[in-house]
């Protein structure tokens, strides 16, 4: 029963990805071609509200539903892996029009091709795990 709430949150997320059109290959192409404000508006609104909410949570020491303090983790300090790994991600994002969330959401929408994208993403994740120690970070 404790796990059901995560499934409901995921369901809401899936609905948002479809209704916002953020799970659209066309919208991602439009974004990278700077031909509409739509995607920038979505991400910008989410980030601005997110920054305010996180500041308020920290300022007022707001607790989670179990009564524990909400903790924020600092990302490990590095440059190369974020820039280079991020660029590799971006290549795939523009090609498939899907980041990891929308891949699964679109599978639910009935796009069979997304199963191939997901298979590729699993292979890519696996490949990273295999060669991780030989990569610069």
């Amino acid at each position: 029963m404790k796990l059901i709430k995560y499934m409901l949150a995921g369901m809401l997320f899936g609905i948002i990805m479809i209704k916002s059109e953020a799970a659209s290959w066309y919208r991602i192409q439009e974004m990278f071609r700077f031909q509409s404000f739509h995607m920038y508006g979505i991400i910008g609104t989410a980030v601005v509200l997110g920054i305010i909410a996180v500041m308020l949570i920290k300022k007022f020491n707001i607790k989670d539903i179990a009564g524990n303090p909400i903790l924020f983790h600092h990302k490990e300090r590095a440059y190369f892996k974020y820039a280079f790994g991020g660029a590799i991600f971006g290549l795939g994002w523009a090609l498939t029009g899907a980041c990891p969330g929308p891949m699964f959401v679109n599978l639910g929408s009935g796009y069979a091709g997304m199963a191939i994208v997901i298979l590729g993403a699993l292979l890519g994740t696996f490949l990273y795990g295999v060669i991780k120690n030989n990569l610069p970070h």
Partner: protein
Amino acid sequence: MIDLIKQPWPWYFSGTMIALIMLLLLFFGKSFGFSSNLRTMCSMAGAGRKIRFFDFQWKNQIWNMMFLIGSVAGGYIATNFLSNPSPLKLSPATVADLNRLNVSFDGTLNPASLFSLPALTDSKTLAILLIGGLLVGFGSRYAGGCTSGHAISGLSNLQLPSLIAVIGFFIGGLIMTFLIIPFIF
């Protein structure tokens, strides 16, 4: 009410809802980051027996896998019950650009010429989808997160590494869009 939901959502409402998802997970004591699930799936399939990166306590990530299952259901529900038939309002400039690449705009979220079942009989399309997915999977683990983990969760917490990652996402996206896609489509 239902008619209001059925319309395409304006960007400011969509953005607010995404921030809400991040907050919801924070109040559940978790953090919003979708691509970790790909690592979890590799571990569940037994990759941890041979490779240390996949040898971790993946059972602590079951909540996130539930989120993933929910997102598939959400995609189904939104597409089948919460959509109206009006075509997506894509910028005419994008429609024209894509036409030049022989990708016709059909008014839906994703082109049937790439993602429909019949499209999978074409080996070039298969290669595009598989390689594209591979880049996303490899890159998100290399960068330690994807759009949700870095662009939403990370930037909300003012993390410089996330800003670097998001700039990286854009550099890669622009290279693909303007330098590579014209040659492969």
